[in-house]
């Protein structure tokens, strides 16, 4: 990955490296920051800066299935907010919270670029389109049994 950036400019790999590593271990840990800092020769503070900025990078542990519901305009016009309320009620958790068994976490997200198939949700990296409260119920049941 470092080879994709000009010599001496390996810091370019920072964000992809953090995100791909996070996907494998589930969250950004102190050890990960140290490791990335060593590999790219960047200061820890430069990594902290980036962590505070990008919404997809997170230090807290999330559920095995991270359900992201879009409530931005296109989704809102077709029931995204109702979907969000429904999901909160069903799971008994709020924004950026995880169920007690650690299986599902919930986040209200901004536009995920699936506007023509709204309302849309993301489960980890999988898109689900034209979601209804009923299909969301079925989806969540499926995720919980899959563990």
């Amino acid at each position: 990955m470092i080879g994709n950036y000009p010599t001496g400019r390996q810091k370019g790999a920072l964000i992809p490296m953090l995100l791909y590593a996070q996907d494998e271990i589930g969250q950004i840990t102190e050890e990960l920051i140290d490791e990335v800092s060593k590999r790219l020769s960047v200061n820890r503070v430069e990594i902290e800066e980036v962590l505070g900025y990008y919404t997809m990078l997170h230090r807290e542990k999330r559920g095995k299935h991270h359900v992201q519901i879009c409530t931005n305009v296109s989704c809102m016009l077709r029931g995204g907010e109702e979907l969000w309320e429904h999901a909160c009620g069903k799971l008994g958790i709020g924004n950026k919270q995880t169920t007690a068994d650690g299986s599902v976490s919930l986040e209200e997200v901004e536009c995920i670029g699936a506007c023509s198939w709204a309302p849309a949700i993301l489960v980890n990296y999988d898109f689900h389109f034209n979601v209804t409260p009923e299909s969301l119920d079925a989806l969540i049941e499926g995720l919980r049994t899959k563990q």
Partner: protein
Amino acid sequence: MLLNQPHPLETRVLTRRFEYPQKNPIWVDEFVAKQGYEGFRKALGMSPDEIIEEVKKSSLRGRGGAGFPTGLKWSFVDRKSSKPKYVVVNGDEGEPGTCKDRVLIEHDPHRLIEGCLICARAIGAERGWVYIRGEYRFHIDILDKAIAEAYERGYLGENILGSGMTFHLSTHTGAGSYECGEESALLESLEGKRGNPRLKPPFPATVGAFQCPTTVNNVETFCAVPDILLNGGDWYHALGTPKNGGTRMVCLSGHINNPGVYEVPLGFNMKRLIEEIGGGVWKGRKLKAVIPGGSSSPILTADEVDIPADYDSLAKAGSMLGSGATMVCDETTDMVKLLARVMKFYAHESCGWCIPCREGTAWLAKILARMDEGAGMTRDIDMIDQLATSMFGRTFCALGDAAAMPTMSIVRKFRNEFEAKIGSTEVFVPAPGTQPLVVL
């Protein structure tokens, strides 16, 4: 694969290889069999100036939102500079309502690679990156596979097709930031930093990625280039209207019967787009308003949409073509709620680099949320307008403008709804002795 049924009124250039339904991306064999990389082969026989001249003739304008002429942008790159030159593809696609770049990458990934190669040839670049938003991991994987295929077949790497040209391309994932769709913030992000915009000038053509001359274009812009080379700039220009060449992808969403991504010529009438291609407003309701180019563009009322949709006509109508996101609102839409949601987005996505935007979006979001909940005050309406006006044109990048433009247009065109929302509820009365937080 995502795709709506093709519509007979579409003009298919970028989507001409798409099939319905299409199960897999068009991989290299099929791509080459359908005229793939032929535009690039033609470009190899041309000088950089000739390529740029052809793109200029096509009147192709940036499809990311700003609509800057692409040929002109390429000509600004200093080819004689001793520094390396870079090609950067903007696939951040964060503008609410926009979902076209993903369709292009998902179905025909080699077309994007071919567009990058032609640009690289024109500006003398040997390295490029495709910056794709983090949520599109699926699309990054498709493009990575297509890039690997291109390396295998000798379309990327060293001595491409025996021409002596070198070009390396790789994907670069974003990590969830709307602001990184702004070209200079995108370059910061590419360098591994926070996505704060840079002061311009210097523009990326002079000082871009890693301080080197860089061309940044939208995915759709690059995808249009192969056919321009193949069939000529004049051919492409003739598809659209004067100064607005070619076709564009539109993403129909909201209260419409057939939402989807379609390809239409520039200048295609917006009313016909909604009624004929989109199948009209859903549930037999009446049209109230259209957001023609993503949530950053000023709103058009139902009476204003009977216009040709190209950059110049929409600018004349006081709005913008933006990124092709057309959001349709039916008569039941609550405009106060809509604007409150739009502003919540901008307040969330403001990078905080400059004050008018950081403070303006946050205060507007608070005032609008209060008003939406029914606790608005009459003076709020003017304050919303005033805050947006004072934010407009006073920020580093266009995010401040993007938040101000819809605000000003909605509060002015639908003022009655704001007034009604206040009139229908009890006026908020602060506790006795409370000092106002802000006095304007």
